[in-house]
């Protein structure tokens, strides 16, 4: 019992993160001051939110490569809305961004569900389409800090109980996801569909519908992050968050969510995102050549995946113990 607890993915990652923090502290002690750690968490919040959505998608044996493009398009749309109607209240902006993101997720989900196209192809396509739409609506122009209203920019930075709203949204998303995954039928269906789609069908779960639901969830979170991102960096243009989808997938993989579907936890996704977030924030302050930075980020991912492969290899779904021994 104790042994299996020690083997748990979350614990290993937690220890790895602590070791990483200690190593960074040996070169730059100020990094582990609570105020700085809060800053790192805030900076990682968008990655955490996106990793949660991506996790639901990956659990169902799919992948969503369009999250960053969805984020950028939603961000551009709300930024344009804000410049046209500066008086629009923030709750409306939030609702528009979540809805728009969900619609884009629905497009992915329907293509996967109804037309049975492989998710990697669908989302690779929509990724390009969404980026293209940003160019069409914005004409390639930027929306800049002075064109956005003060309240639009202030929302994610507003401090509430010591933490910025951006951080709180990530915390709420993590809690909400823990409940969704652990306590609802939909959460269980994600695992069932990814773990064994055929068996899931026999238990009365609609595989395509569940996958579609995961895409909508991922899209809605990407849309929400789109507004937060644009408001935080106070700029919107075609290329924002370029390549971020791979970082999101990497966070999931590091967090122990199996690309083959059916295995993973909310804690894993959270820790995977935090691990990447800490590496990204630490590299600039520990004075390492930019060429090494890329290599270090990449190695961290490969080590995590290699670890994943060895630690999950033995966990086959053995139904007949006897048959296995007979082999």
């Amino acid at each position, binding site marked *: 019992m104790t042994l299996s607890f020690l083997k748990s993915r979350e614990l290993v990652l937690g220890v790895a993160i602590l070791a990483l923090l200690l190593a960074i502290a040996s070169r*730059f002690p*100020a*990094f582990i001051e609570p105020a*700085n750690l809060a*800053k790192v968490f805030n*900076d990682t919040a968008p990655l955490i939110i996106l990793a949660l959505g991506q996790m639901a998608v990956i659990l169902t044996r799919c992948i969503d490569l369009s999250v960053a493009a969805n984020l950028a398009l939603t961000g551009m749309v709300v930024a344009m809305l804000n410049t046209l109607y500066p008086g629009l209240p923030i709750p409306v902006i939030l609702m528009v961004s979540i809805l728009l993101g969900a619609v884009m997720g629905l497009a992915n989900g329907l293509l996967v569900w109804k037309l049975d196209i492989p998710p990697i192809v669908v989302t690779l396509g929509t990724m390009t389409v969404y980026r293209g739409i940003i160019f069409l609506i914005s004409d390639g122009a*930027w929306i*800049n*800090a*002075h*064109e*956005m209203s003060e309240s639009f920019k202030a929302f994610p*930075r507003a401090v509430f109980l010591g933490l910025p709203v951006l951080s709180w949204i990530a915390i709420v998303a993590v809690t909400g996801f823990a409940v969704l995954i652990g306590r609802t039928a939909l959460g269980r269906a994600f695992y069932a569909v990814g773990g064994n789609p055929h068996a899931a069908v026999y238990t009365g779960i609609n595989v395509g519908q569940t996958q579609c639901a995961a895409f909508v969830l991922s899209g809605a979170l990407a849309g929400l992050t789109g507004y937060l*991102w644009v408001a935080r*960096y*106070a*700029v919107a243009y075609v*290329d*924002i*968050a*370029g*390549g*971020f989808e791979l970082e999101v997938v990497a966070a999931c993989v590091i967090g122990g969510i199996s690309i083959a579907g059916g295995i993973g936890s909310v804690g894993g996704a959270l820790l995977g995102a935090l691990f990447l977030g800490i590496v*990204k*924030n630490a*590299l*600039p*302050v520990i*004075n390492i050549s*930019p*060429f090494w930075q890329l290599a270090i980020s990449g190695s961290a991912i490969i080590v995590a995946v290699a670890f994943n492969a060895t630690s999950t290899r033995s966990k086959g779904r053995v139904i007949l113990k006897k048959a296995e021994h007979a082999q």
Partner: protein
Amino acid sequence: MKLLKSLLAATAVAAMCIAVPAQAETKRIALVVKALGIGFFEAAAKGAEEAAKELGDVEIIYTGPTDTTAEGQIEVINALIAQKVDAIAVSANDQDALVPALKKAMQRGITVISWDSGVAADGRQLHLNPSSNALIGNMIIKLAADHLPDGGDVAVLSASATATNQNTWIEEMNKVKDNYPGINVVATVYGDDLADKSYREAQGLMQSYPDLKAIIAPTSVGIVAAAQAVSDAEKAGQVNVTGLGLPSEMAGHIDSGASKSFAIWNPIDLGYSATMLAYNLAAGNAEAKPGAEIPMGRMGSLTLNDNNEGAMADPFVYDSSNIDDFKDIF
């Protein structure tokens, strides 16, 4: 395509209408831009009109394709050849693709120069660069030094570590940094022209160097992200963000005080100079050859190098006194 053709036709007709009542000796100079409807080029056209007014006997034909393609520019240039304009000043969408059309123009006695974005040497008589690497390198450190009379630590936030133009400018900056005593360049970091990475790198700089006085970002994504990071850290006024940026993108950060000043070429001066140069060549006042000095009105004169290229001036400095005049232009 149909739209493009009809637009072209309209441009041509409009040009004829302007041309017909003009006197025989009036020089018609065509300013061909990458695409119509871009603020930067509209501003350049303003400068060209200013030059035309100063010269008196000049008609400006401001034209270009509707999107930034070389094919579109070739059609425009062919139309201009048919109209027998006196000079073509082009900012090219492709440095090689325009050469045959421009050669044809030169064979018909039309003066051809390129400005802003150049054409290969055999497709034009001279090329006007907005500035030179040496001038830019000097300007970016001067911008930081101007606000640091007592000196201090400054850091550079570049785009990617492999960006040729960025590295050239930083190299030129390092060559002249001894002319600014007291200014220490403590680090060069790379934001890869991504808003989030640049923001993080700027935060890292402020953490690693608590005494940092300025961040020099010679990239438009980097300068905006660094200014935002400085505002968010509530260090506006303490850390000055400067470098190369666009007035429309930097206006908010000049207002907030995160950036005291920054530089970029002035499109009005560029259009003005290009027109002056085209006029002087077409009128036979000067000849484009290596080493030549060609006058360009209030902007002084352009000295050509072995490749018949020259640099107009220092990048133009934008600060709170003039940002409002330019933020809607480009």
